[in-house]
């Protein structure tokens, strides 16, 4: 009995990725029910149940009991000061740093929130950023929503029409929208724009590289392999530096790219190499019979890949791609090193403002919180997709 309770107990708190055997995972949501319901027999009172749960999960042996007490002690030492700093002693409103006391100075965040989100984007035009992000979010939700009858169409629109509309909105200069140069873009919206633009460019490139690496033609295979391995072998930061300082050297005199575009090119090349490896793994996971069946009904290489192989491979690698997108979203902060003002860059700039000098802790904790919420939500999504794929394939 104790054994079973412990087993179910771990299953409950185990919300994190389950990379166990497929059948095991698929069974888990079902196995969860009894633990919260009537696993302990309908006769057990609530106190009795609690007592058993404590016994099984916190005090199963003298060693475990000691560890539990020690952990509680450590938490008791660490959490109250943090809580006091973040809430009790914190200051939430004020014009400059003279209001700050011993606790966190959230007044700084409140004062700078607009910059943290929009950077130096012209204040009167910020609705355009909101609208562009809303469009992207809407279509992304449609594309990921499993019961959408026109999902393929949504995905197509997401990677073709949406970027065009969003770019038009953000850049302006037409249809009566005032022009906003990209060096005024910044803040969290820049991280999102960079991530989206990079995925849109890198995904097709990744597919081409993955197919190229599996090609029969040695020249194509070798050049794709070399490209992938080279980019996976160097840090993203060096690729960004290369895009910034080396790219202009390789273009004719007078032709210059916008700094933002250069960063997107660097990010896309880098991420495409990672996408390529993920997609290649997906292609390898397609049974040979699928290729043979495609060839047997008279499909050529491209037809077979477009209609039979890639759709299945993509379904296999969606979690891997979402994980790479999460990494990409986190890595867009690297553009702050090469002189773009993303959220991290804006925070770094704001803590040098004389009004709010030296409030690095507050600024970075706030940025970390934002990134955590976004990335955690995405990783939960990736987990759900993974589960659905597992249960569909069994």
């Amino acid at each position, binding site marked *: 009995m104790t054994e079973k309770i412990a087993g179910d107990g771990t299953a409950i708190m185990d919300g994190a990725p389950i990379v166990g055997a497929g059948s095991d995972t698929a069974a888990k949501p079902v196995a969860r029910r009894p633990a919260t319901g009537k696993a302990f027999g309908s006769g057990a009172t609530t106190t009795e149940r609690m007592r058993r749960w404590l016994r099984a999960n916190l005090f199963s042996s003298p060693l475990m009991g000691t560890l539990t007490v020690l952990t509680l002690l450590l938490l008791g030492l660490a959490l109250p000061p943090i809580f006091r700093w973040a809430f009790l002693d914190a200051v939430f409103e004020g014009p400059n740093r003279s209001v700050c006391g011993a606790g966190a100075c959230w007044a700084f965040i409140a004062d700078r929130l607009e910059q943290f989100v929009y950077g130096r984007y012209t204040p009167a035009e910020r609705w355009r950023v909101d609208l562009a992000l809303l469009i992207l979010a809407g279509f992304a939700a449609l594309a990921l929503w499993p019961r959408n009858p026109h999902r393929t169409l949504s995905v197509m629109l997401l990677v073709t029409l949406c970027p065009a509309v969003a770019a038009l909105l953000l850049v302006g200069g037409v249809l009566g929208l005032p022009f906003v140069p990209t060096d005024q873009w910044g803040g969290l919206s820049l991280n999102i724009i960079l991530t989206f633009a990079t995925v849109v460019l890198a995904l097709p490139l990744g597919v081409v590289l993955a197919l190229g690496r599996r090609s029969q033609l040695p020249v194509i295979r070798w050049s794709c392999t070399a490209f992938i391995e*080279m980019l996976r072998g160097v840090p993203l*930061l060096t690729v960004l530096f290369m895009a910034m300082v080396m790219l202009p050297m390789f273009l004719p005199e007078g032709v210059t790219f916008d700094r933002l575009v250069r960063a997107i090119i660097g990010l896309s090349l880098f991420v495409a190499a990672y996408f390529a490896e993920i997609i290649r793994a997906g292609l390898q996971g397609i049974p040979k019979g699928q290729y043979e069946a495609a060839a047997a009904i008279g499909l050529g290489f491209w037809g077979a890949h477009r209609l039979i192989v890639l759709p299945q491979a993509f379904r296999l690698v969606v979690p891997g791609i979402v994980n790479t997108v999460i990494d990409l979203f986190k890595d867009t902060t690297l553009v702050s090193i090469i002189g773009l003002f993303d959220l991290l860059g804006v925070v770094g700039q704001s803590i040098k403002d004389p009004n709010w000098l030296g409030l*690095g802790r507050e600024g970075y904790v706030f940025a970390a919180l934002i990134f955590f919420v976004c990335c955690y939500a995405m990783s939960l999504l990736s987990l759900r997709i993974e589960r659905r794929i597992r249960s569909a394939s069994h």
Partner: protein
Amino acid sequence: MAGKSLKGGSSLWPMKAPHALLLQGVALLIGGLVIGWFAQNAASNLARRSMELDFGFLGSVAGFSMPFQILSFAPTDTYFLALVTAFANTLLVSALGVITATVLGLGLGVLRLSRNWLLSTVSGAIIELVRNTPQLLQIVFWYVGVLQLLPLARQSLPFGDVAFLNIRGLFLPAPVGGPWSSALIIAFFASLALVPLARRYLAPESRRSGLFWLAPPLLLLALVLSIDGWSLPALKGFNFVGGMVLPPELVALWAGLSLYTAAFIAEIVRASVETIGKGQVEAAHSLGLKPWLTLRLVVLPQALRLMIPQMTNQYLNLIKSSSLGAAIAYPEIVQIFAGTVLNQSGRAIEVMVIVMGVFLIINLAASAALAQLNERVALKER
């Protein structure tokens, strides 16, 4: 052609030889044209600045000093020596990071797997928090949000009476080398490289060749014995003298790299052990193995096989991420070369080729070494 090496179905659509040749020829031609166009642009750009592609600048005097180095470097030294020094700094922080990340990661992973609800929840919360925030943000947070807010030297945080933490860094006791110490350090590292080679080529069959592995620990022991006492940091005036100091840049980068990688290693440990499955553990229990023996004889050997390739990736990522030190001015290879040297010399192409080349070499060497390790532990199937 190597038809057998192709996986999947590509060979289902055989291409006639002339077609294949034509297609590859076209690909080569387009690639060549693009590269040629780039090269021509680069040449004319360089000519306009009256420069040429030349790595000779590595021999000229650097003229800048580094805030921190483990090799000796002076402003009068050459760019090449700056490269070597920055490279050593990169290796230093990577090595420190790999060690602490492994220890921390294994610890967190074991806690995460614990049947104790509190332990596994707390470690799970730490892991998720660390995994879902950008690494650069963490490094900058440690630097700006923690280390730069530390007290001045006079109000240092003491650890015992031997180590002190303040705004200038972490002050630690340093061993004072005896007359033989430096020779023994070299001998120790040489033995680490030579013993596997000697075992392989001198006595591949003999069982006694395992005794060669006694050499590195013995040398290490001799090294410890050769130390001439310790130099302790002590407060004199406004700063500490004696001992050694790890500057805040190094500490922040070290902390950021280790913690981030540790969270990923913990997840790898958890996933690998969970993949082994309940059946194996129950079988071991039914054979009468105690929990510790189950772990040592049944779970770990199997989990290790699954873990090693993934750990390799994490270590390589850590080495690459050490470049983030550029954000907090830790003098590693990107900061020194893509920053200082590039600004001073204006040689964009050469500098970027060198920096990327160095990382490619580190990466290839590390992955080759770890691939060999993997081969040794991998399951030998029929």
